[in-house]
């Protein structure tokens, strides 16, 4: 697992999500990237059940259970600012058994699907974020395989991102700041996806409020 940067691409003015994705993929292909199949990252939310809350009345914590097609035999479970657990796919079955402690939030499943591109040692994934039937945004993930220390290659990644995202290049992800010389791992990528999904969930609420 190399250093990965997950970011959101804003939808272009006057265009749909689909068209913006097409624009991006065309730019990538012009750069010389090769298509290499598809990918999918999804996320389900669970509340801690009310019965487990103590008399202190703590707020229920949210737990996210995520899957990544890059690691088909693994399942990631993370809390917002807490630890990330990497388990195998039987964890989903375990969650069913833990219904008493964790309850699934309604209509919370959010996922991103799209195509993978390979350019030299970079792996680029452009996906459409959907919640239910509606497309909510565009996720862009860039992984640089050879490097495993985040602080080393941020400049290099930034240069690559600029070459095809142009002005929409993101800033350094917060996970990079936390771990200076530690080896980058898949858990860090899932934390970035979790942040992205939360941001997109919050975004959609604004237009809904406007309609009302």
């Amino acid at each position, binding site marked *: 697992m190399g250093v990965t940067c997950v970011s959101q691409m804003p939808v272009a003015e006057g265009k749909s999500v689909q068209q913006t994705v097409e624009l991006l993929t065309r730019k990538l292909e012009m750069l010389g990237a090769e298509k290499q199949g598809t990918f999918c990252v999804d996320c389900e939310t669970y509340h801690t059940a009310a019965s487990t809350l103590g008399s202190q009345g703590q707020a229920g914590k949210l737990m996210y259970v995520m899957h990544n097609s890059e690691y088909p035999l693994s399942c990631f479970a993370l809390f917002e600012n807490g630890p990330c657990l990497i388990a195998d796919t039987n964890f989903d079955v375990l969650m069913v058994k833990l219904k008493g402690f964790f309850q699934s939030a309604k209509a919370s499943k959010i996922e991103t699907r799209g195509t993978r591109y390979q350019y030299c*040692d970079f792996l680029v994934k452009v996906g459409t974020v959907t919640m239910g039937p509606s497309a909510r945004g565009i996720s862009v993930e860039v992984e640089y*395989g*050879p*490097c495993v220390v985040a602080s080393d290659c941020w400049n*290099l990644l930034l240069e*690559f991102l600029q*070459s095809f995202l142009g002005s929409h290049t993101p800033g350094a992800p917060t996970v990079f700041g936390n771990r200076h*010389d530690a080896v980058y791992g898949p858990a860090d990528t899932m934390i970035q996806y979790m942040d992205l999904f939360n941001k997109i969930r919050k975004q959609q609420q604004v237009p809904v409020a406007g309609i009302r």
Partner: protein
Amino acid sequence: MADVLSVGVNLEAFSQAISAIQALRSSVSRVFDCLKDGMRNKETLEGREKAFIAHFQDNLHSVNRDLNELERLSNLVGKPSENHPLHNSGLLSLDPVQDKTPLYSQLLQAYKWSNKLQYHAGLASGLLNQQSLKRSANQMGVSAKRRPKAQPTTLVLPPQYVDDVISRIDRMFPEMSIHLSRPNGTSAMLLVTLGKVLKVIVVMRSLFIDRTIVKGYNENVYTEDGKLDIWSKSSYQVFQKVTDHATTALLHYQLPQMPDVVVRSFMTWLRSYIKLFQAPCQRCGKFLQDGLPPTWRDFRTLEAFHDTCRQ
């Protein structure tokens, strides 16, 4: 003419011998004429017989005299010289049709050219031997008989010495760690780990570096049975490029008499890769060129360049 050719033939005696042959021919024909004429008319039969016999004897004597003269002259003529300088190729020069088959002149030119070539090649090899390109300490072109009895010592070093040198270099740089093992006989195999950037497998032959393979920090360097995998390439293009550069470096740093200096310089050059992903190219200022970071490190200044940007 006689002094120009100087082939050992006495031309004076030669012409005299030819005239002697003519004289011999005429005297032999006189004998047969005499026989053909028969006896001359004389008064008595005895007189005719005596005159005939006397005439016949004179003719035979003259034949004898001419033959002796010819033999004497033929001994003087001498044989043509046996030591012909051009042997069989000289016979080509006797071909009179020069413009259709200029074989002899072409042959002479080819011979002169090959002589010159051999001379120049000898001079060149003498000059080139002074700057030896071979990595062994043996002298080039020395035949088995003339090889000195004592073998050069740098190729047959005790393993303990090699271990000592490597452990000293290991302590030189804090971010580089070297692990030595000998899974296949006496040649050492080093696993050099440079920070969290890359791993290098170095195969050595006594204290000379033979091959290197550069792989990523997260790549597996062992085979399924736990031995060091010295053959499979890295799966990342950047490290395949660095492997090529490392091979160039081990051919560049050469000193057959002082191999430990060579290993030290190679490790110093390798250490400059600690900033493989952080250093921009010194020439174009960018980080990426065709998707690759600056992978070339200059051998003297250790500056980072893209492979296409280096001078």
